[in-house]
């Protein structure tokens, strides 16, 4: 097999690098949490990098992204600075939110990451709003809102589907279906088998893709974004994925069968993509380029973590500043 072409190769390797960056970041967060350097309620996106990276890879800088409570990957995929993100998780003044937000309340407006949320389904109506503003501005801006399968049973989710459809909002609903909401499998939350069925009800075009296949998510998002930019309204993408860790750091995930974990190891989005790249001759047989990418981002993340932990704490006065805009 021949290689796909230099520019295409580079784009593919960028996807790989971005996934590795997120993986390395999240593993570092886990490590810092375990060692007591980061506190809070942390929901990591390890194993779900494919959907965040695939979807954000085709967005413009001025497009909007909103995340769920598991949003580190969403922010990084949209281009957030890992150092400011890490500093935020560590509660430092140099963090994106000056230590006021933390893991579930990340905002990196400079790159179009509008907000995460600690409230399940909480950012979906907000996404309607950024889509509405984008529509009014008339520059073709699109919003992608990420949420989990658990959010699919929330009232605001359904109200949002209806409104987005009714007003043809330039919005991509991106459901990362990892099969669980906290400790409970999706089948115990709904009889609906595919979350796309909800979209069908509201006449929103939808597709279910293999969420751990970064290219499949990219392709589906590309179509959805094209539709949205051209005034065709919202789309719904259900990306099937898996959360190999507990719901939050510290959760032992005893509620899941071990076999289930084995099955998903093979479907890891990064391992899987590397295999594909080898087959396509983008990577050589020993995947040495991938190991270099991995080593580089891990080194970068080490520096990011060090800088974050060296950064100053927020000043006491900041506690009550910014409650209202002045």
């Amino acid at each position, binding site marked *: 097999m021949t290689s796909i072409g230099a520019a295409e190769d580079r784009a593919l390797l960028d996807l790989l690098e971005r996934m590795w960056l997120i993986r390395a970041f999240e593993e570092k967060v886990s490590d810092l949490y375990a060692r007591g350097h980061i506190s*809070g*309620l942390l929901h990591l996106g390890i194993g779900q990098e494919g959907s965040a990276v695939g979807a954000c890879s085709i967005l413009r800088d001025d497009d909007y992204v909103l995340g769920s409570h598991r949003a580190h990957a969403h922010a990084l995929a949209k281009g957030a600075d890992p150092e400011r993100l890490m500093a935020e998780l560590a509660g430092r003044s140099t*963090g994106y939110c000056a230590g*006021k*937000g933390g893991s579930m309340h990340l905002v990196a407006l400079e790159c179009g990451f509008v907000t995460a949320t*600690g*409230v399940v389904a909480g950012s979906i109506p907000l996404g309607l709003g950024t889509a509405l503003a984008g529509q009014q501005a008339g520059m073709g801006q699109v919003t992608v809102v990420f949420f989990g399968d658990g959010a699919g049973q*929330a*009232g605001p989710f359904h109200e949002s589907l209806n409104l987005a459809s009714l007003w043809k909002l330039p919005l991509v609903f991106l459901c990362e279906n990892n099969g669980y909401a906290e400790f409970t499998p999706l089948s115990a939350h709904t009889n609906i088998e595919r979350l796309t069925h909800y979209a069908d009800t509201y006449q929103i075009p939808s597709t279910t893709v293999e969420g751990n296949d970064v290219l499949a998510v990219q392709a589906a998002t590309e179509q959805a974004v094209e539709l949205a930019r051209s005034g065709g309204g919202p789309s719904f993408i259900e990306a099937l994925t898996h959360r190999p860790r507990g719901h939050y750091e510290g959760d032992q995930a005893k509620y899941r069968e071990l076999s289930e974990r084995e099955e998903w190891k093979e479907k890891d989005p990064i391992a899987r993509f590397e295999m594909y790249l080898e087959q396509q001759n983008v990577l050589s047989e020993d995947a040495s380029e991938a190991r270099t990418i991995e080593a580089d981002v891990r080194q970068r993340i080490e520096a990011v973590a060090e800088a974050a932990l060296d950064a100053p704490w927020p000043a006491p006065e900041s506690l009550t500043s910014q409650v209202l805009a002045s």
Partner: protein
Amino acid sequence: MPELRYIDAIRRALQEEMENDESIVILGEDVTLGGPFGATTGLADKFGVTRVRNTPISEGAVMGMAVGASLVGLRPIVEIMFVDFITLAMDQLVNHAAKLHYMSGGQLRVPLTVRVQGGISGGYGAHHSQSLEAWFLHVPGLKVVAPATASDAAGLLKSAIRDDNPVLFLEHRALYWTGGEVGEVIEPIIFGRAAIRRAGTDATVVAVSRMVPAALEAAERLEESGTSIEVIDPRTLAPLDLDTILESVRRTGRLVVAHEAVTVGGIGGEIAAQVQEVAFADLTGPVLRVGAPFAPVASSPVLEKLFAPGVDAIVDAVQRSLAFSRDGAPA
């Protein structure tokens, strides 16, 4: 008496009530698996999944369902995972649960218990740390309970479940793993009866939920400098045992109210108002409030620590209170 942790006391009360009353059902997210903190661990095994129901993340519908079921014979206990998410169920709780008995001219009853946990701990940030009790005190038709000890958690929960009105049962996450003596037999605790946690003579401190252990620690510290404070735990905020507070204030002449919620619009203001309306002449100085600053809860550990009112703030308020005298001269 045996020691039980606050959270285990809650579980024991749930279990004993469910054994005694078949109409009790539990509805909530992950409750069949114990939930994130283990309050309901084992109950689904004991009582089955028709009585302990794992719900989707649909707080509004679940609250409404519980209210509806309570109207016609069930005695539901809804668990909202964090009090912050009760906002999603406000319509059913405030517009329906609280008012149906009244609006129906007494035809309907709403024997509903809503268990929620909240408060500050662990750097969870602005969506998982709030204390919202004051919102609910403002709504006629709701009872609001805030236990500070394991034994109260058990006894008050029993009363909440047996009550024919909607009861909001506010647990504090930071108290879950604190232990306390709980009797072999858990007796229901009658609502509207405050507990005097420590007798004192110089000032009265009314402390809510987690502020109770903080006030007791403050009392120890103040005692070292010769100040004796009385610590009152109202236990239920609606109904509020004003009489016990007044009786104490008439002896001490000074009152500090401490809660973890934001001071502005908090229940400290309400208690202060009620006390001064009837006992103005007995007060030697203004009623002081201890609460959180007017801001959301920041996630950074240093800001969170600054935000949360605690022992220092109570000691300080008591000392400020003691510095007042009626004629304006330093006491």
